[in-house]
């Protein structure tokens, strides 16, 4: 304790003089109030044994005298402006960087229901309570996002609420940016100091940032709050459709034992809240196992993988949030196929009709196609032209097109040019490796007439007749397939190869449709395509993204793409805000699957941080409040005087 105001030598004379004056006043006979009474003789008889002669009266005077001396002593003390030694050191500008990464939600040692972040908060609170009046502190939370939890201040009433608002996030901490911010805040101030509160479960980038900070000009100290490091996490979760069986789904789950002891876990997979798989895994320390669930029905779209204890215990493995993972498989949408036909080729129509799980078939006459009256013609995914003698429309629709005998007439809109007419051609060669001709054999197919086609580089010839292309597939923005013969003028429709070829064509076009995104990881900026999510991108310029915690953000869409940085695992709803399909929404799964974030081991133990970077234990709470102590002393004086005043007016001390 030191005095910033008057010294003891200055205070003592004042106290001595004041005490003498008070004592003198008390020694003087107290002037009593005069009360005029009409019958003093009776009063005298009654008060002959007055209390004033009793010891208590005298003692009360003594106590009153002592009280006045105490008040005087306190006033002298206030003049001295007493300050605890902790206040008299050089001011400190302290930046408290608290790691709020996923691992900070891990358990604390020896304290049930306490997380590592709770320990860090406790430590930070002690540091804040030990601040002197000239000290300043700022609290920075470091997760994937870096945020100032409490601004630079010396007031615990400002700092501690901000501290309490910190919550563990789901990814790794971006210590590089957090330390840069902390250094920027305190480096120009008196006594700069950075205190990092972390459990040490950091990724290499964060460790590098710590090392750089420790070597930097600002004093950088690390206080570690550790705890048990056992954790089992789902580190990967994916779902996909089979390439050649789009109505079936395959789900992959990767489970990693990040702890130091063998463990048994139960892995359950749910699809649309219905269990579709359950298995028990025994994992050695550090072991990683992958489980694949095959042949799941594609009608289900939301998949959740969940780890649980074998005995049904609800306690999570280490971190609770990495015991779950999510995936979304958009529902399978059939291709819109338009068949332009004169109605005489029932074989083709039948081959398409049997694909009703994959195809939404619309029949149309050649005249309707030429006139373009029906909107299905322009909106179709695939258009089959089998018009025989009828003419083709002047222009082909901007979509995938399959044409049979496009050059029967003299003119044709077909982009694949005619080479020559042939009579009774033989199909002599076929591209057996082409997916359109998978399991298709065209040997000995009889054709009455046909047309050979001219190819350009890049064209894929499906059939040849004596080396001349008779069926060509051209990949461009849209795929065009031209068969140089009319099925009616051949026996191909009567063979099993024909429906198989039609089926292969449909699958070929299906595979050219956009894929899907089963899930994305948290923490990174990810460019997503609306089409991949199953949302038509036409006309959409903004989407609303609603997270699992209810947070809503509106993101701009450019050319059907938008960038999303998800910070919370779970299912996100993405809704188109404009365009023809405004209001339609799809789901996106976001997973925390991150090996570093789930690893609770203290990675700093193996590092060689300088000794000076190890933060000492926090001093115990200062028993004194913040602010000038003399104000508290004067407050005590005021309370004493108020008590004296009240007792005087209640006739207790008079």
């Amino acid at each position, binding site marked *: 304790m030191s005095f910033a105001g008057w010294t003891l030598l200055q205070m003592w004379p004042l106290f001595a003089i004041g005490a003498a004056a008070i004592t003198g006043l008390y020694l003087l006979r107290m002037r009593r109030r005069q009360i*005029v*009474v*009409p*019958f003093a003789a009776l009063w005298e008889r*009654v*008060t002959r044994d*007055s209390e004033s002669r009793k010891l208590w009266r005298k003692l009360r005077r003594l106590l009153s005298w002592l009280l006045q001396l105490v008040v005087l002593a306190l006033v002298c003390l206030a003049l001295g402006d007493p300050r605890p030694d902790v206040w008299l050191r050089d001011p400190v500008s302290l930046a408290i960087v608290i790691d709020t990464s996923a691992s900070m939600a891990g358990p604390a040692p020896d304290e049930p229901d306490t997380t590592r972040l709770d320990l860090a908060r406790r430590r930070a609170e002690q540091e804040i309570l030990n601040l002197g009046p000239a000290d300043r502190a700022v609290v920075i939370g470091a997760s994937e996002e870096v945020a100032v939890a409490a601004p630079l201040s010396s007031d615990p009433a400002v700092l501690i609420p901000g501290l309490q608002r910190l919550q563990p996030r789901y990814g790794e901490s971006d210590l590089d940016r957090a330390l840069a911010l902390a250094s920027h805040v305190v480096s120009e101030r008196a006594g700069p100091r950075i205190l990092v509160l972390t459990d040490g479960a950091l990724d290499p980038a964060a460790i590098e940032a710590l090392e750089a900070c420790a070597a930097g000009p600002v004093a950088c100290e690390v206080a570690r709050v550790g705890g048990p490091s056992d954790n089992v996490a789902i580190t990967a979760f994916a779902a996909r459709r089979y390439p050649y069986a789009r109505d079936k789904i395959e789900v992959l789950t990767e489970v990693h034992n990040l702890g130091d002891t063998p463990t048994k876990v139960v892995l359950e997979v749910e699809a649309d809240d219905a269990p579709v798989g359950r298995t028990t895994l025994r994992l050695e320390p550090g072991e990683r196992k992958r489980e694949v669930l095959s042949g799941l029905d594609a009608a289900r779209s939301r998949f959740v993988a969940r780890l649980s204890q074998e005995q049904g215990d609800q306690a999570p493995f280490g971190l609770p949030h990495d015991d779950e993972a999510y995936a979304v498989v958009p529902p399978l949408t059939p291709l819109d196929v338009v068949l332009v036909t004169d109605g005489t080729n029932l074989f083709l129509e039948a081959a398409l009709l049997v694909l009703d799980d994959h195809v939404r078939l619309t029949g149309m006459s050649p005249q309707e196609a030429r006139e373009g009256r029906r909107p299905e013609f322009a909106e179709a995914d695939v258009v089959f032209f089998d018009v025989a003698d009828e003419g083709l429309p002047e222009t082909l629709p901007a979509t995938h097109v399959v044409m049979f005998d496009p050059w029967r007439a003299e003119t044709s809109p077909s982009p694949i040019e005619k080479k020559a007419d042939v009579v009774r051609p033989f199909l002599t060669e076929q591209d057996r490796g082409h997916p359109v001709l998978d399991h298709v054999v065209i040997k000995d197919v009889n054709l009455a007439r046909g047309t050979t086609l001219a190819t350009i580089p890049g064209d894929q010839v499906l059939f040849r007749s004596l080396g001349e292309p008779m069926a060509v597939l051209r990949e461009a923005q849209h795929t065009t397939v031209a068969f140089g013969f009319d099925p009616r003028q051949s026996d191909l429709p009567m063979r099993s190869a024909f429906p198989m070829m039609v089926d292969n064509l449909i699958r070929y076009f299906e595979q050219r449709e956009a894929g899907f995104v089963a899930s994305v990881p948290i923490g990174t900026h990810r460019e997503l395509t609306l089409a991949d999510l199953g949302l038509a991108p036409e006309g959409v310029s903004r989407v609303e993204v609603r997270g699992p915690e209810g947070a809503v953000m509106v993101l701009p869409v450019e050319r059907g793409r938008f960038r999303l940085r998800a910070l919370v695992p779970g299912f996100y709803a993405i809704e188109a805000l404009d365009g023809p399909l405004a209001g339609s929404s799809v789901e996106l799964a976001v997973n925390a699957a991150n090996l570093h974030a789930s690893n609770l081991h203290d990675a700093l133990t193996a590092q060689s941080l300088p000794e000076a970077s190890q933060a000492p234990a926090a001093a115990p709470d200062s028993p004194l409040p913040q602010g000038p102590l003399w104000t508290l002393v004067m407050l005590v004086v005021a309370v004493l005087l108020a008590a004296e005043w009240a007792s005087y007016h209640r006739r207790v001390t008079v």
Partner: protein
Amino acid sequence: MGWADRLIPRRKAAAPRQEEALFDEAFLERLELLQVIARRLFRGRQRSERKTRKVGSGLEFADHREYSPGDDIRYLDWTVWIRLHQALIRLFEEDEDLPIRIVIDVSDSMGTSDGAKLRYAMQVGAALAYVGLANLDRVGITCASGKHHTTLPAVRGKGRIFRVFEFLRTAERGGPTDIRAMCSRVAAESRKPGLTVVLSDFYDLEGAFEGLNMLRVRKHEPVAVQIIDPAEADPTHSGLRGDVQLVDVEGGVHRDVTLSARSLTAYAEAHRRFCEQLEASCRSRGIFATQASLDVPFDDMVLRLFRQGGILR
């Protein structure tokens, strides 16, 4: 009342002089009513019906005594002379009107509480005087203390009431309470003893009863009316606490005391015992004594005196 008024009490506006307000119109109206009620009470009794013990020339036989030379032989009882040959003179109770003397204590002790007790005593005294004058009694008033002694000689007739009022208004006040001296002087200056009503607080530990008894000894018929201010009699609710100096309003005594709830209760008890003792002493000597509390209206008090006090017999 604003906070400033609470902190700094303003001087009260000058009230009309209390003496002027003492016998105002309302007071006179109440006197008239009182007189009507008193007339009903005393109906059938005529003037001079009060008998004195003086044996004189009245009509009602009182006693015999032996003849002595010089006696009027008209009062010789010839019947006894004829039968017993004793010369006895017949004595008769003399019918004469008893004078009413109203003595009001005007000492300083009656002036406390803003003179409420003195005002009350004067109103009671004036009321008694009015009723007496209305009944054609002779009424005299004395205002006395240990310092002043002023007497209005006995007057008769209702019209003299304003003289009584004027006397009461202008009577000198102040001085110590000395009941004994006051009664002695009243007895000395009364040519005829009569009904003497003493209105006082009797705050005279030694002389209160002695003074009244002296009147009785001097053939007066004293009636003691003790004026009591309830706030003075029981100060337990006065809020007085702590170390104070008690100053006697009549001067002389200063006493440092520490007032507590217990001491205030003790005073109230002592005051009650003092009043009871005074009343018991008076009763033992046949002196009617009563208490008049300020919270009882003066006219009710006067009627009570008429009913219970034996002012008229």
